[in-house]
């Protein structure tokens, strides 16, 4: 067990499981999913989760997160390497606590500890796309209404609205979640998000810098079957990568017909209690 790695786990309950080791994980009841009999290709409603949930994949990414292996630490979910950072991004967006060791940019330490201490210990918002990585730990739900598709993330109880019948407003106040609009292109929902405030991380493990306020996320959601949807996302950020996009984020999610999103707030008070009760004892050397 690497206590530092647990810092990337925002959910106390899941963090508890990690702290107590795999034996506990094996006892954690699995919420089953069942086959749905019919589906509409343009209906994404429902609770979705990765096929093999659990912290192992994120932990594996963390273990690979050193300088020499950073190019592979996005595999298997992010299939393309990150474009080179602009000098401006290197100067302004690197996460200070993450700079003690080098990564592909020669400046970043990319293990979970760096991200945990720099950004995530204080229950700060996560936003998208970083929330997609946490779907490895907790599901999300799409709820469709006449003018919006809502996406509820169990992790930290964050939610966003994807507006279906309008474009981005001409003037946007920068926010953590940005402004998301969705359009159907055939049977693919294309979600376009701009208007970020530049305070979000991009991915929780493996990317040691923040996004800028020019970050632009384009998601393609495609229903593959009654049970499965696919996400194919591309990041743009002129200030960070110039005119080079960073594509290749591909994820698949399975429908969970019998599941409901549970309450999983990030509470500083709960975190402090968790730290006291579990993390400190876990960090003690074994006799």
């Amino acid at each position, binding site marked *: 067990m690497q206590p530092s790695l647990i810092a990337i786990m925002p959910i106390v309950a899941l963090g508890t499981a990690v702290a107590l080791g795999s034996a506990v994980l094996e006892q954690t009841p699995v919420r089953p999913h069942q086959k749905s009999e019919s589906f509409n290709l343009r209906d994404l409603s429902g609770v979705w989760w990765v096929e093999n949930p659990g912290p192992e994949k994120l932990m594996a990414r963390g273990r690979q997160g050193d300088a020499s292996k950073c190019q592979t630490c996005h595999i298997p979910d992010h299939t393309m390497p990150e474009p080179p950072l602009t000098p401006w991004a290197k100067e302004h967006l690197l996460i200070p606590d993450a700079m003690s060791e080098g990564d592909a940019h020669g400046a970043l330490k990319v293990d979970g500890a760096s991200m945990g201490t720099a950004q995530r210990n*204080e*229950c700060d918002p996560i936003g998208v796309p970083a929330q997609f990585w946490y779907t490895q730990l907790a599901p999300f739900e799409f709820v469709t209404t006449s003018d919006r598709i809502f996406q*509820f993330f169990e992790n930290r109880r964050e*939610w966003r609205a994807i507006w279906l019948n309008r474009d981005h407003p001409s003037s946007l106040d920068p*926010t953590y*979640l940005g402004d998301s609009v969705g359009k159907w292109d055939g049977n693919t929902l294309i979600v376009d998000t701009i208007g970020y405030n530049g305070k979000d991380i991009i991915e929780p493990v493996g990317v040691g810098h923040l996004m800028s306020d020019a970050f632009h996320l384009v998601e393609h959601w495609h229903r593959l079957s009654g049970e499965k949807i696919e996400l194919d996302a591309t990041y743009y950020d002129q200030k960070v990568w110039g005119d080079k996009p960073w594509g290749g984020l591909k994820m698949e999610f399975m429908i969970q017909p019998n599941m409901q999103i549970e*309450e999983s707030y990030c*509470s*500083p*008070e709960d975190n402090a209690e968790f730290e006291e009760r579990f993390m400190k004892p876990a960090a003690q050397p074994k006799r």
Partner: protein
Amino acid sequence: MKPLGPKRGILVRNCFAGAAVASIAALVFSPVLHPQSQSTAPATSKAASSQRFDAHDMTGTWRGEVAHPGYRDWASYDQTIPEPPLTDWAKQHLLYKSISHDSLGGTPLPDKDRPGHICPNNQDPCYSADPNGVPTNDINGEYPAKDCEPLSTPAMYDYASIGPMEILLTREGDRMFQFFEYHREWRTWWLNRDHPKDLDPTYEGDSTARWNGNTLVVDTIGYNSKTMITQNVGHSKSESFHLVERFTLTDHDHVTLDMTYYDPQAWGDKSWPGFRKYFQRAPKEDFDEFICSPREYQEYNKRVAAPLDGHPQ
């Protein structure tokens, strides 16, 4: 502009916890949102809407109605019914050391300018302790979401006029969602089921909703005991806290909310009725992102609130 004194400092800090520093700084000086200003604002009473409406369609964006005649819509100061006596168990387990806001009764503060106490304004009573002896108006006392913790209901309604709420009905008709701009909290009201038998206590609890005539009755149990009932009460909920909300659309543009609180562990078989809120319809575009970020909140306290209230954080 007249400098803000300590009274304003704590109120502003508490009310706008977590917003971006720049935004908060702007709000600090906004007379519209400040309770002191609310009470002196011209009473622009809203005329009843003559627009046709479906009494069972509660969907829309709603904001606390500041200008309702004879009504303040700030925290729980409109409550006139006293709290039921606390059980011995509650006195032992639920009381806070102190709260930062005023209480709804208790020990009057003889000198409103007494150092260390922050009375909200001259139009409200000012107490040094609530009816259970919990010190009030203490700058270091408890208030909802003090460290960006969830507020939950009913405390969320203390701030109904700060940010709007939106109520939505799902396409399937099985749930309604209630979104609060303030701290971006949300709840689900289940329309076609009862409370599950085994509930894990949570911040928001489990809510079911039923129509009783033209009133939507939302019933919530399963709370954890980590949140305040309102900023004006010096103890937390217990896990047996039970909230009953009655929403009634009085015309196309206005909703009245009546609430009754139950908590057998705190009040035995006595309930605490009489909490009322008035809402008026607001444009959908009014709903902004208002996330409580601990990092920004700490920054705000350091840069803005502490200098204003004169207390180091």
